[in-house]
């Protein structure tokens, strides 16, 4: 049966309906790509909205507080009644302290786990261990925060008696535990993609497995491992609930890790959970702090992207 002719039991009416359908089909064919493009454009709109809200509200903040005071001030006392000071450095230092501790914990352990999984473990062990590690990555951060406050801090206080209830050490360690799976999983992917022929070449020359891992696989997977570390740093910088539960709320400008601190994220949470009225300087300050944080993480993400592209070895 051709599409033009009449089939058995068909009337002209059906034929007209059919061709009308065909026209409708043409419209969907043309309309759908446009519609889908709009959905794709929403992700772009989201970025634009994020950047613009941050910039506009931050601009409002800088009409009240001078930019140099903000960037170079070493005192962050927004709640001190008559003379509030907004110097971002203590908050940045708090964030950096926690991130640094997290990196010190997560990088050795994460890469050790990645080397074990990719170079030593049997296929079966890998297939069991890797999903469990990914479960660790799926634990909500509020749970980690609770863990830091009620488990890690008391244990650390036994070891270091001078440790305060709120400190930089405990959230730093727990943020480290949180980003271990990220480093381990992404680094393992990078190491597994190094071809076996290269490994076997080194083994045939008499290298031990350890030498293969350190001298052959690690350099070959360097770009993937480095970018996984940088991405993990970006996660640690933006981590919120762990540091606001276990880190405290006193921004200090020193390198002490046993006392209470405040990170950029924890400050935003502190203001949001309180009643900072709309339109006050404190209200606008969370956007300035959020914008600062956004720039930090954006730089980290771009750096990770750059490392991955620049140092990538193709096989």
């Amino acid at each position: 049966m051709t599409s033009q002719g009449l089939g058995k039991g068909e009337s002209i009416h059906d034929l007209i309906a059919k061709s009308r359908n065909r026209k409708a089909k043409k419209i969907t064919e043309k309309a759908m790509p446009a519609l889908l493009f709009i959905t794709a454009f929403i992700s772009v709109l989201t970025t634009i909205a994020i950047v613009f809200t941050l910039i506009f509200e931050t601009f409002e903040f800088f009409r009240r507080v001078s930019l140099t005071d903000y960037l170079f001030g070493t005192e962050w006392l927004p709640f001190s009644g008559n003379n509030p000071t907004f110097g971002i450095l203590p908050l940045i230092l708090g964030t950096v302290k926690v991130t640094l501790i997290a990196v010190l914990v997560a990088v050795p352990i994460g890469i050790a786990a990645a080397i074990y999984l990719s170079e030593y473990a049997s296929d079966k062990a890998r297939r069991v261990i890797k999903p469990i590690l990914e479960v660790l990555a799926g634990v909500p951060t509020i749970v980690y925060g609770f863990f830091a406050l009620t488990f890690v801090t008391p244990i650390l206080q036994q070891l270091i008696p001078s440790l305060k209830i709120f400190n930089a050490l405990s959230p730093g360690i727990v943020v480290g535990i949180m980003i271990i799976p990220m480093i381990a999983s992404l680094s393992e992917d990078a190491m597994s993609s190094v071809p076996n022929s290269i490994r076997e070449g080194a083994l045939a020359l008499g290298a031990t497995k350890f030498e293969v891992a350190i001298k052959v696989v690690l350099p070959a997977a360097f770009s993937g491992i480095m970018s996984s570390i940088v991405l993990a740093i970006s996660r640690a910088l933006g981590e919120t609930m762990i540091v606001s539960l276990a880190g405290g709320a006193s921004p200090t400008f020193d390198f002490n890790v046993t006392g209470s601190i405040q990170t950029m994220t924890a400050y935003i949470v502190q203001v949001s959970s309180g009643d900072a009225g709309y339109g006050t300087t404190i209200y606008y300050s969370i956007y300035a702090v959020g914008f600062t944080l956004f720039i930090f993480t954006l730089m980290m993400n771009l750096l990770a992207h750059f490392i991955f592209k620049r140092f990538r070895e193709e096989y």
Partner: protein
Amino acid sequence: MKYIEDTIVMKRMKTRINKNKGWKVFFLAGTLFALLCLVILVIRIIIQGWGYLDWDFITNFASRTAERAGIKAALVGSIYMMCIIAPVSMILGVGTAIYLEEYAKKNRISNFIRMNISNLAGVPSIVFGLLGLTIFVRAFALGKSLLAAGFTMSLLILPVIIVAAQEAIRAVPKEQREASYGMGATKWQTITRVVLPAALPGILTGSILALSRAIGETAPLVVIGIPVILRFLPDGLLSEFTTLPMQIYDWAKRPQEEFLYVASAGIIVLMLFLVIMNSIAIVIRNKFQKRY
């Protein structure tokens, strides 16, 4: 005649072999440390919270006293919020993925969209909270409602869903599309009747995993200003509500020791919730995923 003298080889390689063994133990210890953290975390929370976990805990509203505190409002709020996030984020995410994989030409605009998505994935969740506060709560005047929080969370997990859907769509072999075109199907017919059904398990798995991330997320909701102590259930899209992580956060902050146990009980419920969602995702992946 023997070319390789075992004893000499052993003598020369001994330190290197021992080094290998020593480092192997270290690498294994690193792996086990990560697993041990998970075990300790789970066991401790179960020990602390088990005593407080009973039917009353599920059916009571929040309370000032630890014995009477329950999570009814939070549990219902989390489920309602999920009902908003799931359709919004999946329509946007899958739509974007179809556009990028099936329609987009390799030009500047599509490259820009791709780069934008990968950058969006790296934005801290608290910044999404600031976005939600400004755009949805204030500019759209939705208030601290289910809808405002649902939209914010949808945007937060959008990049994850897009990437998962893209991978699932890319995994559908080209031959199937060509066969469909060969039968006279149009592009849209091919997408809806061939590509999407084949990619559906992958899309669903990725989406459920992304949703479970949204369920466990706290920071954006704190910034939006979601209340914690609620004694009623949400009754509409613009109603106030609270979620499990918010409730846990509130309990964990309290100085009284009993509330730590209540918080643990809340965490058990939250984790069970997530385990169920993840199991569904795994079942879908194992049962319906086709390998080509």
